[in-house]
């Protein structure tokens, strides 16, 4: 890897990351294939951590697969499944295995996932996890004990620009910056004005924000997002546009929509880049980026 994600964020005008979900099982061929399709198009690949509280191959192992396949990984770490010992020990493991970027998240509650009977851990929250990453970087653990060899992670966090109400979300956004977040990746945005309202209120100053782009493939998916995903708003006009597109052309139309959105964000200098979540259609990321030209 010539330039690290950390350096890219400092030097490149418009940064692109994409999300990949690890398999539910041990079959990693598709993951490797997706990485090979994406690696020349994106600056880093996020690997989700039991996303939506659905049990999958660990983010840590999948990050290693991503890096072996030639892309730089961003390890997503949630607070849902591990206490502070396990989190720290996995972070040290990640460093040893060559992972350099960590995205600290709270994590969806187990009750909405596929193991609703599991004990939700949440020993730390995302703000405290960012602090812990900072301490590991300084060569000590979260109770102050020295480490034999420190980490030097590049820590990031997430924010939901469309959160309602926005003020408590902004409170947490600011705490994450104080706790050491060096970049943000956002929840999906479909409406540029919604993002502008957030940016006006948040005043993120110099902190890089990569805006979340989700590939819409049907009006039903848009409705689902509107009804079920807090802080995500798909405007009626986009739902209509997809509804009036013949079924077999909807994925292509969704790619155009995502491309136009990225184009608008880049042209309007509204953010430092985008974070593409193609949810199960990761191989479409290059087409989305071509559509954004």
């Amino acid at each position, binding site marked *: 890897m010539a330039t690290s994600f950390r350096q890219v964020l400092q030097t490149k005008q418009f940064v692109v990351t994409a999300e990949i979900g690890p398999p539910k099982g041990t079959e990693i061929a598709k993951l490797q294939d997706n990485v090979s399709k994406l690696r020349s198009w994106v600056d880093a690949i996020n690997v989700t951590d039991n996303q939506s509280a659905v049990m999958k191959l660990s983010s840590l192992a999948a990050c290693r697969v991503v890096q072996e396949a030639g892309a730089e990984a961003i390890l997503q770490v949630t607070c849902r499944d591990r206490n502070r010992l396990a989190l720290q020990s996995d972070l040290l493991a990640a460093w040893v295995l060559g992972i350099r970027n960590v995205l600290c998240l709270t994590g969806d509650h187990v009750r909405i996932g596929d193991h609703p009977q599991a004990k*939700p851990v*949440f020993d*730390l929250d995302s703000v405290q996890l960012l602090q812990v990453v900072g301490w590991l970087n300084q060569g000590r653990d979260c109770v102050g004990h020295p480490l034999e060899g420190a980490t030097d992670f590049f820590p990031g966090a997430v924010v939901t620009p469309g959160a309602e109400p926005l003020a408590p979300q902004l409170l947490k956004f600011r705490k994450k910056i104080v706790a050491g977040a060096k970049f943000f990746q956002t929840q999906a945005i479909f409406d540029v004005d919604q993002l502008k309202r957030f940016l006006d209120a948040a005043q993120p100053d110099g902190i890089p924000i990569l805006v979340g782009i989700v590939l819409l493939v049907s009006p039903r998916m848009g409705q689902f997002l509107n009804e079920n995903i807090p802080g995500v708003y798909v405007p009626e006009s986009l739902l209509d546009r997809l509804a009036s597109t013949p079924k077999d052309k909807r994925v292509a139309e969704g790619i155009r929509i995502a491309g136009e959105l990225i184009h608008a964000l880049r042209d309007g200098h509204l953010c430092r880049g985008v974070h593409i979540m193609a949810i199960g259609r990761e191989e479409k990321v290059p087409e989305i980026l071509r559509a954004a030209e």
Partner: protein
Amino acid sequence: MIVARRKPLSEIEAMLQDLSRVLIVGCGTCVAVCQAGGEKEVEILARQLRMRARLVGRQQRFDEITLPRQCDPEFLEPLTSLAGSYQGIVSLACGAGVQLLAEQFSAIPVFPGLDTLFLGVSESPGIWSQRCRACGQCILHLTGGICPKTRCAKGLLNGPCGGTHFGKCEVDRETPCAWTLIYERLTKLERMDLLERILPPDDWNVVSQPARHALPRQFEEKLARS
């Protein structure tokens, strides 16, 4: 108070099916208030069990007694002379009461008649909600009198997660988002400074399981003298 709910009749019946003499013991404190294990509930359970026994042709006798409290040995005194004549005791107390009974009358099997739920308050008639996790490190003065450890589904200490939605929780759209409530309360109290503060993770060692608490020795001695 401690909030509990009665176990389903079938579950209690199955525990007792081989016993011919059973004493049902109610508790007159918390669980009486939440209508799960007081005198009235003891009477209802006894009638239900008698009816079931008659229906399936089992020879069973169910007697009733309700103590003012089951979590204090002093209040278990009335059972001392009674207990020996029963093959089993059903306790309609919280888990603490059931255990003290089992400890005090260790020769007789004690069965739980309730499922203990949480420490909470009465919201409106017939509705209770959890308010306290008994963490041993109260921070309510920092969070506007609303406990995020208990009332946030994830127990988050530094603000809402991304699942908050128009003041409701991602886990259950009927449940208020604790951090939206805290934000509103502290804003109203003009304590924005508290909102900016990063709270450290809980110290789980403060109330480590199994927890025990003793009054300071001097205080105990003073009590003994008085």
